[in-house]
């Protein structure tokens, strides 16, 4: 639902306008009649609306503090002086902010190359397992880490690759010097990508497995009869069958480029230092909440929110231009 894609699709289901749309008796009723009919649904939506208002709309509007010299103790949001774009100007001159932007984009680009294809490859591999029971077992295992918290994942990686971890321990037992990848800032990007693969790649494969199951098996048979061997079938049938999903997820990821896993970086910031681990979200936390400079942190957060919004809108446009379904054109 980029705003306009959504409007488009929702227009299609305007009350009384589509044959499939409205429930019994919905055609052109008066407001009072519709209220009488639909009030239970409104009551049902109420708890959700209250929560969304309190924890989405109000904070979203509360972003005005980004334009204030906000002081929670003298005046709060109504009494603090408006200072225009001063916070933003200061932001763009802040080397730590620039570093956060560079790190975020660098990590996104790196993971686009080294994480994004992994679930696809995994799905192809799983799909080629002939025994149904074996495949169910492997799927069960690879989905599992998705349900672990980042705290657990980092703890587990620490125990494996940290200075006192299993690998270092085995290396030392064999007379080598140990390793400590948890505090090595040079290899940090490899570490976070490995963690992401370990935690999310299995779950990420689900979507591709579903797409694979929708490919018409007759195509394979026909191709095999025509003499196409395994790899040619994969190239000419499987991959084209996956294309829409791949494009969709790629676009989603681009629209989400500023999000690289807040918790993951918060947890490891102390171990490797902020130089390589500072990303957008951690910057907001450390510059705003930790130092109490709420207006400044909110400015960074708002900047990220707006750029993210723009990226999603652009990505959705690109999807439509490429003839894909679009990211959020759900009704």
């Amino acid at each position: 639902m980029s705003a306009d894609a959504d409007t488009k699709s929702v227009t299609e289901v305007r009350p009384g306008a589509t044959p499939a749309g409205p429930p019994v008796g919905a055609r052109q009723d008066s407001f009072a009649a519709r209220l009488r009919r639909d009030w239970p649904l409104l009551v049902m939506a109420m708890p959700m609306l209250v929560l969304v208002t309190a924890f989405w709309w109000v904070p979203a509007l509360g972003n005005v503090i980004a334009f204030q010299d906000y002081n929670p103790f003298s005046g709060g949001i109504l009494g603090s002086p408006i200072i225009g774009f001063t916070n933003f100007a200061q932001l763009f001159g802040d080397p730590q902010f620039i570093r956060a932007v560079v790190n975020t984009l660098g990590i996104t680009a790196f993971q686009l190359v080294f994480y994004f294809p992994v679930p696809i490859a995994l799905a192809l591999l799983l799909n080629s397992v002939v025994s149904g029971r074996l495949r169910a077992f492997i799927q069960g295992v690879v989905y599992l880490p998705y349900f672990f918290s980042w705290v657990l994942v980092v703890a587990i990686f620490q125990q494996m690759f940290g200075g006192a971890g299993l690998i270092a321990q085995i290396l030392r037992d064999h007379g080598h010097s140990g390793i400590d990848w948890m505090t090595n800032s040079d290899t940090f990007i490899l570490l976070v990508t490995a963690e992401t693969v370990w935690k999310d790649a299995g779950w990420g494969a689900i979507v591709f497995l579903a797409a694979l199951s929708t490919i018409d098996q007759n195509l394979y048979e026909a191709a095999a009869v025509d003499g196409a061997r395994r790899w040619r079938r994969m190239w000419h049938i499987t991959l084209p069958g996956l294309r829409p999903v791949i494009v969709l997820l790629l676009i989603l990821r681009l629209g989400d480029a500023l999000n690289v896993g807040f918790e993951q970086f918060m947890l490891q910031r102390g171990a490797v230092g902020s130089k390589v681990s500072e990303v957008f979200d951690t910057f907001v936390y450390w510059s705003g909440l930790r130092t109490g400079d709420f207006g400044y942190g909110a400015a960074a957060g708002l900047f990220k929110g707006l750029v993210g919004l723009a990226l999603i809108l652009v990505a959705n446009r690109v999807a439509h231009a490429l003839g894909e379904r679009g990211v959020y054109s759900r009704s």
Partner: protein
Amino acid sequence: MSTTKVSGLAPWEEPGSLAGRIGKGGVLALIVLAVLLPLYTIVLTSLSSAGTVNRVGGLVLVPDGITFDAYRQIFSDSVVSRAVLVSTGVTVVGTAVSLGVSVLGAYALSRPGTLFHRPILFCVLLMFVFFPGLIPTYLMVASLGLKDTYWSLILPSAVSAFNVVVLRAFFMNIPRELLDSARIDGAGEFRILWRIVLPLSKAVTAVIGLLYAVGYWNAWFNAMLYIDDTRMWPLALVLRSYVVDSNPLPTATVGVNGFGHVAPPTLAIKMAIVAIAVLPALVIYPFVQRHFTKGVIIGAIKG
């Protein structure tokens, strides 16, 4: 998934080369090992005596006597046991709240053309594209007086737009005739939801419930933001402080019991906490796993 392959190769399919099959098997074995080996050694270490851990000099790979000392020690101390209780309570209450609110909201949104359908849907869908930001959310929670209450761990993250949309996609696929005939029989909306829609959506509701529960069980950041009183910390935050950062127990200043308050925790105890944190996922997982394909994928694709 595809049913043609379950019983073996399709008739037209040539068997792979021996080398190819060995290679594939090897890769799959490595993948499974990469997930299971860390869990195995963590659980084993948590069950090993201090002597064994010292002799090995770290994580234990080969069992050498099983002892529950680490667990006994953990649960004789108030910090971890309390955190387990807090996490359990927050997870149970939070999941109930989230699932209730989401199911009701998704059902309310499942029929285009009803009153205010568009603006309400718009409200929810906007949550996908814009994140209001950490700091305004923090200030809102603080100004509602939720700081240092358990509600601060539940309410701000209670509604996930994604989950609502997935549930809604399912509810929209339920044949209209079913709902209409119930309505003609005089059933109200709540009754229809409870007696017809929910029983038909067990799989997706189970998966969404699991996703919410896992989210609450795993959450630590909200607690770090909103809860200053370390006695109210959930397990995930204790885990973070105690295992990832190797801090002494958070109640060091309170000094309740004689254990571990000064010295950093031993490896076995750390691993026991990790094991406790993993446990609920491992226990519930097999029951919900079979719904994943049905529940999540169809939702994701149709959604």
